[in-house]
């Protein structure tokens, strides 16, 4: 295996002379991740403008109170329609009848449509709660009046009963008792109903607004503030889509660059004849593959260090697990990518043909390795992901970075990666028999 070491040194020496390729490996991932962070962070603060036609004031006010929603009033449906056509508003809402609303969306941006839908729903609930509160307050007043009347009434009755005590009319006393009991029951049941209603309204109002504001006014109307403290097991309140894809993205860059550059390097050895010359020496075929693995493994580690440092340092991504585990997984993935790249290079006649593997082998990994959630997809689509090495590396990286898992609990992912590596390497060593029979 001494030869493998010298081959690795030569491959690295060659790469060090090729500054552009080095820059591609080390700078491009950082640049792309930085751009992705910009893009995916900007998306989370979309605002919408909604035109309203003939909406009740309380609904309109409630809608305007929803975060990221701005309301503009339009006199007629025509005016609102025009505003929508001119892209001044993202949707307009009109009242068609009592409790009947019609919302027209521009629907050119699904996030905005969803925001309007959620916002209007919340506004309707909030307005409904207010109306209910007013009714409850009114009812409460009526009940107070009623119970006062009842009190007066029963007091008068008590006086009357005292007066009639001497007469000792057993049936009459039973009759008044029954009347007073009935009145009391009616009064108390009314109170219970009102109370339970107001509790339910309070719950629904809380649910509707808790998404947008942490502090919610309690529905009792007495301005009792509820404070919600949020705690996050991973990251902080700014943690978003970008943070979710970082672990997979890290693996993807390692896979992509090692696959492409190593594949091209071996292709070049073949086309320039250096592979033939190498095979005309006593070197073992396995030593050539091992030499490439050693050199590109080292490169993958350097690349991972750079990506980790920049994502943690400048993009505030949190790594919960150990950095060592991240390195080990990326190293393993790099070896798989290398074996894959070398294998594919045997099917390519030129560098351009090597590039043609990008849409066939590299891009599917982006779609099926977990960057896009696969949970809702059909089973056969999910099955595709099981044959892609990036799926396992991405999962392992997610477990380490987001859930703080150690290498020992990732046995399955690592075992599958090792299996990929063993099979692909064996195919490579075997495949080189095409060039030399021993």
């Amino acid at each position, binding site marked *: 295996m001494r030869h493998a070491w010298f081959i690795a040194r030569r491959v690295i020496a060659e790469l060090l002379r090729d500054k552009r390729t080095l820059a591609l490996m080390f700078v491009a991932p950082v640049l792309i991740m930085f751009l992705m962070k910009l893009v995916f962070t900007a998306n989370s603060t979309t605002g919408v403008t909604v035109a309203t036609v003939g909406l009740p004031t309380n609904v309109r006010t409630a809608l305007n109170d929803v975060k990221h929603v701005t309301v503009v009033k339009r006199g007629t449906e025509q005016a609102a329609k025009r505003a929508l056509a001119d892209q001044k508003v993202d949707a307009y809402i009109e009242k068609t009848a009592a409790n009947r609303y019609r919302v027209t969306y521009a629907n050119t941006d699904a996030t905005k449509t969803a925001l309007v839908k959620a916002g209007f729903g919340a506004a309707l609930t909030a307005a409904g709660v207010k109306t209910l509160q007013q009714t409850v307050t009114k009812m409460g007043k009526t009940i107070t009046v009623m119970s006062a009347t009842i009190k007066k009434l029963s007091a008068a009755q008590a006086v009357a009963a005292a007066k009639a005590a001497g007469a000792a009319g057993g049936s009459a006393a039973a009759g008044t008792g029954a009347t007073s009991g009935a009145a009391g029951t009616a009064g108390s049941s009314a109170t219970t109903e009102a109370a339970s209603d107001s509790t339910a309204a309070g719950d629904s109002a809380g649910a509707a607004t808790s998404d947008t504001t942490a502090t919610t006014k309690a529905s009792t109307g007495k301005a009792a503030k509820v404070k919600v403290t949020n705690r996050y097991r991973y990251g902080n309140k700014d943690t978003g889509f970008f943070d979710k894809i970082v672990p997979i993205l890290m693996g993807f860059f390692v896979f992509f660059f090692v696959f492409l550059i190593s594949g091209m390097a071996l292709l070049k050895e073949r086309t320039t*004849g250096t592979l033939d*010359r190498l095979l005309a*020496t006593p070197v073992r075929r396995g030593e050539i593959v091992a030499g490439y693995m050693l050199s590109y493994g080292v490169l993958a580690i350097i690349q991972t260090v750079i990506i980790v440092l920049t994502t943690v340092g400048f993009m505030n991504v949190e790594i919960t697990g150990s950095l060592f585990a991240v390195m080990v997984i990326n190293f393993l993935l790099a070896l798989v990518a290398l074996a894959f790249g070398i294998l594919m290079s045997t099917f390519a006649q030129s560098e351009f043909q090597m590039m043609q593997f990008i849409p066939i082998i590299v891009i599917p990994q982006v779609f099926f390795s977990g960057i896009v959630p696969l949970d809702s997809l059909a089973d056969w689509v999910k099955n595709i992901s099981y044959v892609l090495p990036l799926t396992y590396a991405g999962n392992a990286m997610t477990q380490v970075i987001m859930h703080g898992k150690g290498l020992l609990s990732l046995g399955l992912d690592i075992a599958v990666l090792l299996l990929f590596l063993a099979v692909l390497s064996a195919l490579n060593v075997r495949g080189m028999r095409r060039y030399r029979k*021993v």
Partner: protein
Amino acid sequence: MTATQMNLNHVVKRFGKQTVLQGVDLTVQAGEIVGLIGPSGAGKSTVIKTALGMEVADGGSATVLDTQMPNRALLGRIGYMAQDDALYSTLSGRENLTFFGRMKDVGKNALAPAIAHVAAVVDLTPDLDKRVAGYSGGMKRRLSLAIALLGDPELLILDEPTVGIDPALRRKIWRELDAVRDAGRGVLITTHVMDEAELVDRVALLLDGRVMAFDRPAALEQQYGVATIEDVFLKAEGVAL
């Protein structure tokens, strides 16, 4: 001086349905230069690949230095120079030599003197630390030859070593080959430059996967009754003179 360095005995080689070599007999003795000439597609490269063990003969036998080919370990005792330069162009001449020296298991202490020696032989000493990318075509050929000479191989196999180089350099390379021969080693060389075929000790004419004639150039010319190897070649091919 009469030890056989390479012996191809009735070698048959097929690629799919096409039979490229139909029973080739070829020997290289220690201390002689054997030329292999033939038109393109005659199977010259296949003969070399079989001798190196890159390909396995489908029939007959190929032995080099008394060992049945293919044999990986034996490759360290053969110097091979391919048709194309096959150099790492981003590395310097010295780095190329060092790398291949290590692949050929030249000892650590022996490597530096060996590099200095072969570089002097091909006249590349002043340019050793320049990158190969900046070399001229002739310099690349010479470096390629230097790599083949590394490690004092007992048998040199050269595939068209003088293609595309100027006459002065060609003469220089031939002088070096003569020196290798005089040191008692065997050389197998393919060429399609006919006047070069006059310079070898024995010449083999390869036509349609068969060795049509194999003898000293002068003997062949006499046998065919012509003045040059080129005429022998044409006559063997059946072209009317």
